[in-house]
């Protein structure tokens, strides 16, 4: 006598699972990571990445254990957070600071709010910001990779652009060309953000695999370029430098912390572009990508409320105040 399984329909399923999605994000991050490792002379960036990933996974495991909840490291989301965190750090950062970053990302931002899908802010972005305000010197200790020579300390392209020619001469650096910025050649910055080309490649991969929607990245980059152009700046320089591509393709598309609907994603991207522009143009920080994404994360629930999808054939409910 067979015991038959009885369950509600549907009985069919699609085989894209959470861990598969996370694996695709990991694959998409690899080109940018590879460029970063190569540029910053391999060993140090690899160890830094390993420290971030291991501590993120470990914190996730311990956290779930203490909270007596099912173990979730198998979904690979902690690995993604670890990778993103590493890519948001300067390669010179002391390892113990990276571990603090992992703690902030996984324990404070993710697990204390309920774990995967429940956090309101992007874990890696928040960790970067916390580290930046806690250890401002270490977090802005940029090295300029000189191929074939020793790396030297220097400034990021965004800082360089704001300098006068006298200042540039003093530090012995010049404003990088577009192609250097695009490929990540010989410029300062975080481990994973220097090569716009590699990030773009990963982003296109995710779009083709239908993991992310191009709406937020396009509006983010587009609005930043447009605003820069209108105010007489150099739009190409602005979008190719700093964390714009990393933020636009990998953080502004995070499922948990950005709106679900297409309309919401567009608003989110526009907001990121505008805030980044404002911070870069008028703020005291040279870079505004992290803050813009975090601020838009906070606004996400409100954007969602305003951009709910319209139900086919639904009658408008009578307005009910309160």
């Amino acid at each position, binding site marked *: 006598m067979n015991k*038959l399984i009885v369950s509600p*329909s549907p*009985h069919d399923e*699609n085989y894209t699972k959470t861990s598969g999605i996370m694996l695709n994000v990991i694959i998409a991050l690899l080109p940018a990571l590879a460029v970063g490792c190569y540029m910053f002379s391999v060993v140090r960036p690899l160890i830094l990445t390993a420290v971030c990933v291991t501590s993120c996974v470990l914190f996730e495991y311990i956290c779930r254990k203490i909270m007596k909840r099912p173990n979730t490291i198998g979904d690979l989301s902690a690995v993604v957070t670890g990778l993103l965190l590493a890519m948001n750090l300067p390669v010179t950062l002391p390892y113990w600071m990276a571990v603090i970053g992992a703690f902030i990302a996984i324990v404070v931002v993710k697990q204390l709010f309920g774990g995967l899908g*429940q956090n309101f802010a992007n874990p890696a972005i928040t960790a970067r910001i916390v580290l930046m305000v806690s250890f401002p010197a270490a977090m802005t200790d940029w090295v300029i990779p000189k191929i074939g020579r020793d790396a030297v300390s220097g400034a990021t392209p965004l800082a360089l652009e704001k300098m006068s020619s006298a200042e540039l001469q003093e530090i012995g650096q010049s404003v990088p060309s577009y192609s250097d910025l695009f490929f990540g050649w010989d410029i300062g910055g975080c481990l994973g953000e220097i090569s716009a080309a590699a990030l773009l490649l990963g982003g296109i991969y995710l779009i083709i695999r239908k993991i992310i929607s191009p709406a937020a990245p396009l509006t983010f980059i587009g609005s930043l370029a447009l605003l820069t152009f209108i105010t007489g700046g150099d739009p190409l320089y602005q979008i190719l430098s700093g964390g714009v591509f990393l933020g636009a393709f990998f953080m502004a598309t995070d499922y948990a912390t950005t709106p679900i609907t297409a309309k919401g994603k567009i608003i989110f991207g526009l907001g990121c572009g505008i805030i980044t522009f404002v911070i870069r143009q008028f703020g005291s920080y040279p870079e505004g990508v992290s803050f813009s994404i975090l601020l838009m994360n906070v606004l996400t629930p409100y954007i969602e409320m305003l951009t709910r999808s319209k139900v086919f*054939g639904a009658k408008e409910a009578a307005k009910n105040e309160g």
Partner: protein
Amino acid sequence: MKKLNGIRPDHRKNTENSATVEFPLPAKVVIPMSMTMGAPCEPLVKVGDTVMVGQKIGDSQAAFSVPVHSGVSGKVTAVSNYITASGAVCKAVEIETDGQQTVSEEVRPPEVNDKESFIKAVRESGACGLGGAGFPTHIKLDPRTPIDTLIINAAECEPYITADYREMIEAPDDVIGGINMVKKQLGIKFAKLAIEENKPQAIKNFTEMAENDDTIDIVTLPSRYPQGAEKVIIYNSTGRIVKEGELPADEGVIVLNVSTAAFLYRYMNTGMPLVKRRLTIDGDAVKEPKNVSAVIGTPFRELLEFCKADIPAVKKLIGGGPMMGMSIPDMDMPVVKTSNALLAIKHFDERKTSACIRCGRCVKVCPIGLMPADIDKAYRIKNIDELRELKVTLCMNCGSCTYICPANRRLAETNQLAKALIPRK
């Protein structure tokens, strides 16, 4: 025109070229008194009675009900309590067949002179929607509002099932005859025969047949599940939107399944009620998938044996398609009027649900634009106002959201539970 979303599961129409095989008469049939959406019938026969083919063996006083007929001749051996696959409790008549298949005197073409007698004849035929839902056909064909378009649903959008397709290939004249008959009797001007594009042969045949008839329009629909859902097919073939709380008739349309239309045509000519139906037998446990014509009441087990299914390995039995079909709890349950398919599944892993990652795939696939992830959240905290605002009551349980969810969340199921939380006015 706005495009309604959906999913594209593998078609797996393995049986599309399998001509319908007559299933040999079983030794015993069990005929439940509740096989449609209508009220259950009371048995008209008792143990020891002799019954004939086409004889009415169950009926009800309720208007929203459909009588039940026997498809075999033989002796009633039991009238017992029965629980259907959907959990309804009713009586069931068990008949031992005598192999003679003597046809009852009741079987003769009905007299139809006006709409009223037509509707009455439709009820007496025992007809219900053969696409799976089982809505009583005589109710559907008797709307209160004027109808200008008859839509014949031949989408057959569920994977595996080819029963309607075989009807169109094997009995095209009955299909066209049925369409013209319903049009004439109800005074409907136009008919649209809506077929999914994965059935090119049927589209070609009917386009040729209806070439000189400008009252029948053959509509080719994209192969996207749930194309055959009533609201979806109405919109995609006429552009009309059936609004919240409305019936298709309020928009001037009636949707009738293609096999139902062909059956009605045959009934009006022969008087043989709905006692037999075609169903697709398939699934990974079935070695020889087939389209079988079986008497209603035939045990599923015998059909599976007939199709060389690996019976001990069957983990799950589905009555209908994999998207909206019903789990069959017991292999000895019988074929009913709504059984358009029987799927025996060997590889079925119970899904382990994990946390919602808010990827939005459920929102993207919902044909009517619901937000299942938000409904899921509102359901868990029993926020009835929010559920109302999210319009969960409009969910038609097509299952696309559950199908697509990477976290294996049973969103469609939650929608049905959430519907039950909302008090009816």
